[in-house]
């Protein structure tokens, strides 16, 4: 009891010091900005509201369904992503064979394709199985056919999503395999282990944190997808949120579901953090020994090639070629579509979003690190929640915010670019913040101590030391946000201003009207816009910037 009292006294003293001594222009503005960015999500959580009869209905009927479906879909997608991502990363890192250099960067390309476009590209894939299903019914009866049909839906959806999401696992696994370099693999070899046994016993366990990080990204993307699950009819949480809000007109219950989903994603992140921090995996980026790689010939070469070609084909070649074909079929539609206006709009938002998130991340990250303020650090974590929150939920929060602002200040912010960009910032801040704060940590912490004792102002340190040192990280962060912002759909659908369409909304609208063929044109533009930064980033990572 005494210990508790002592601890709380110490804590209060600590807090007091934190607040008193670390309050300045930087930290105060960071806290304010962090609060603002968290606000939409906070409003969503607040609006869980009172227990409605409708909620009872939801818990009685569909809540379990949503949960099970979400879990099954996530697990299946993660499975495909891991199979595709880990195997190809291993093959590309550990072996030499004709084409391995190309595959090394090409395997990342499916990231250019959002899950909803992948779903449209494969929209009729299930029809391929019709003859098979009919045969099943005639041979084994209706029940068998229905069972097979249900399984196929999940299988195909997971396969499609896994094909475009595996690069998350691939990239992280590849980085981990490469940084382990020669050390452990050479040791393993000298102790007589074969390639396969080294992989399972040494390399994979060591890469666990990286792979887990990749898996959590895949899981989050899967959970927040709306286009693919809507198309294939899988009732996940996100699907349920839209249905409850729009189908039942019950915003409150939809928000409750959103909070449950948020809790779900947060627990994934928490789990991931626990798994990763559990061991010291040698975080320091030391230069890795390049080790002698085995050159593959014959059967082994074919096998390796297959491992690389399969994901690339499913995740990139098939979708893109189908859409190129469709674009050719609908080339007359190009003019009607006003594709250049769409592209301009998309580029504008993406650039504004990436620039503002980078600038804000610099402010928030620098304030946290330079002044060693744990309050700002916590506030930043809250502001980073947007990435774990589905875009639709953020839009809902933004609309609630709009309601308050409208009634209080009698001004219109709904339907403006300002609101849209704000919502994008809420959604994507974490994408820029994570690498930037990590860049500050790795490169600048000690140097900032030095510059402080030399008597210079924080601005001087920021401009002369920090920014030049993390220049590459800033560019990478901006590009990452650009890629995500270009692909963004649900948030834009809800918050867009008058006459404002982006490539993503155009794709969705066309597909929704079952004009999937024509939707290929804006889809291809999206892919084109995202492929370029992806290749650039990939090359930079490869160089070991």
């Amino acid at each position, binding site marked *: 009891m005494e210990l508790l009292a002592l601890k709380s006294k*110490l804590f209060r*003293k*600590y807090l007091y*010091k934190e607040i*008193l*001594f670390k309050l300045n222009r930087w930290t105060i503005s960071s806290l304010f900005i962090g609060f603002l960015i968290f606000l939409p999500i906070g409003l969503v959580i607040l609006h869980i509201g009172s227990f409605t009869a409708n909620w009872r209905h939801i818990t009685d009927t569909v809540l379990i369904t949503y949960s099970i479906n979400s879990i099954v879909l996530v697990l299946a997608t993660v499975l495909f992503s891991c199979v595709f991502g880990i195997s190809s990363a291993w093959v590309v890192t550990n072996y030499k064979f004709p084409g391995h250099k190309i595959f090394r960067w090409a395997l990342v390309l499916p990231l250019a394709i959002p899950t909803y476009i992948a779903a449209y590209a494969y929209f009729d894939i299930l029809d391929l199985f019709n003859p098979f299903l009919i045969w099943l019914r005639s041979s084994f009866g209706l029940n068998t056919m229905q069972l097979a049909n249900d399984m196929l839906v999940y299988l195909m959806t997971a396969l499609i999503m896994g094909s475009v999401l595996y690069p998350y696992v691939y990239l992280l696994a590849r980085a981990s395999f490469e940084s382990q370099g020669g050390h452990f693999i050479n040791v393993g070899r000298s102790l007589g282990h074969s390639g396969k046994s080294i992989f399972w016993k040494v390399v994979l366990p060591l890469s666990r944190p990286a792979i887990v990080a990749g898996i959590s990204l895949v899981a989050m993307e899967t959970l927040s997808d709306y286009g693919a699950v809507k198309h294939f009819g899988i009732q996940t949480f996100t699907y349920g949120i839209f249905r409850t809000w729009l189908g039942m007109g019950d915003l409150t219950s939809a928000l409750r579901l959103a909070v449950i989903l948020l809790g779900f994603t947060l627990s994934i992140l928490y789990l991931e953090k626990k798994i990763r921090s559990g061991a010291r995996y040698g975080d320091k980026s030391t230069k890795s020994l390049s080790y002698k790689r085995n050159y593959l010939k014959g059967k082994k070469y074919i096998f390796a090639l297959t491992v690389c070609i399969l994901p690339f084909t499913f995740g990139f070649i098939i979708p893109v070629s189908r859409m190129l074909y469709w674009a050719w079929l609908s080339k007359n539609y190009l003019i009607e579509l006003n594709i250049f206006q769409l592209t301009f709009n998309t580029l504008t938002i993406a650039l504004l979003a990436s620039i503002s998130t980078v600038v804000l991340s610099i402010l928030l990250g620098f304030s946290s690190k330079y002044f*060693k303020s744990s309050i700002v650090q916590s506030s930043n974590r809250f502001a980073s929640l947007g990435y774990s929150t589905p875009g639709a939920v953020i839009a809902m929060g933004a609309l609630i915010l709009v309601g308050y602002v409208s009634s209080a200040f009698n001004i219109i912010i709904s339907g403006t670019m300002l609101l849209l960009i704000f919502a994008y910032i809420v959604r994507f801040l974490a994408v820029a913040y994570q690498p930037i704060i990590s860049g500050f940590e790795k490169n600048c912490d*000690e*140097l900032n*101590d*030095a*510059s*402080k*004792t*030399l*008597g*210079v*102002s924080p601005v001087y340190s920021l401009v*002369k*030391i920090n920014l*030049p*040192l993390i220049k590459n990280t800033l560019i990478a962060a901006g590009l990452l946000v650009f890629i995500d912002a270009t692909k963004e759909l649900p948030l834009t659908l809800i918050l867009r201003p008058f006459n404002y369409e982006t490539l993503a909304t155009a794709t969705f609208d066309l597909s929704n009207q079952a004009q999937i063929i024509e939707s290929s044109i804006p889809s291809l533009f999206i892919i084109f816009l995202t492929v370029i930064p992806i290749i650039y980033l990939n090359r930079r990572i490869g160089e070991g910037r």
Partner: protein
Amino acid sequence: MSTILTVSNISKAYKKNNIHALSKLSFECVKGEIVSVVGSSGSGKSTLLKLIAGLEIPDSGQIILNDNVVNGESIFVQPENRNCDLVFQDFSLFPNMTINDNIYFGKNAPDNKSMIGELISLTHISDILSRYPHQISGGQQQRVALVRALANKPSLLLMDEPLSHLDSALKESVRGELISILKTLEITVLIVTHDAEDALTMSDKTVVLNQGTLEQFDTPKNVYKYPNSEYAANLFGMTNIIPLKLLPDSNYFFNQSSTGQDVISVRPHQIILDHGKKSTSLPEFICQVKNIYDNGRRCKIELEYKGLLLVAEIENDNLLNIGETKSFYIRLN
């Protein structure tokens, strides 16, 4: 003689494991003095420097720099305003700037051009001014870090393990250079080191830190000769802890906390072998030679005296055999 730095009852604990890095530490630095802080790793030395520089905040206590309270109950002066520079263990040179830009980075540096010019020639770094930190050697980096700190004309210079990154041959020469520069500039310096050799050769006073508490504050020589604890004694080199009752003539002793006995620290070179000249004034011990280690100049001898294990250091030209029993004498300070 004005006091540049006063540290009063400074305490800091780390929340993670609630270990106290520093516990009610108090000492002073007078202008122009070089004070070393010696202790084994984990004794809180680096934390102390960070607190004085303002890079971290103590839990309680006061720090006064240049007659200004920089740390107090509700006072905290930002590090930028303390005029107190820190030379870091790994130098922390800014990698994206030339040596010249590094040196002139400090707030006051542009005002001290002539002094900086002298420092540059004193430290022989004028030919590397246009290079980048990764292009110069460790020894050169150390000198650049020093010049950068001094260029700012601090009232107090802090140095964190300034020589730990240098190999032993370099250490010797750098030590000498460092002292001559510091004394020439009449700078007040606080050096943190785990190497007692640094303390002995460089500092006027030394603070012995044990797990965050001050164990002894005296000149290095006094700590070497008259350590007040086993810890302090061992810090400054190998020593023999001998019960006071065996050497009753000693006017110095301390209480060994583990046994409660009063003991004396006797350095290995204080145990001598008489060549045949009888020095009857010295206490005599008849010991058995257990082991002989020859390391070139000197010999380390392990002796046994009535169950007590001793280590002596003697000149090499004595012919001793293992298992022999001989008379040894202890020369008290």
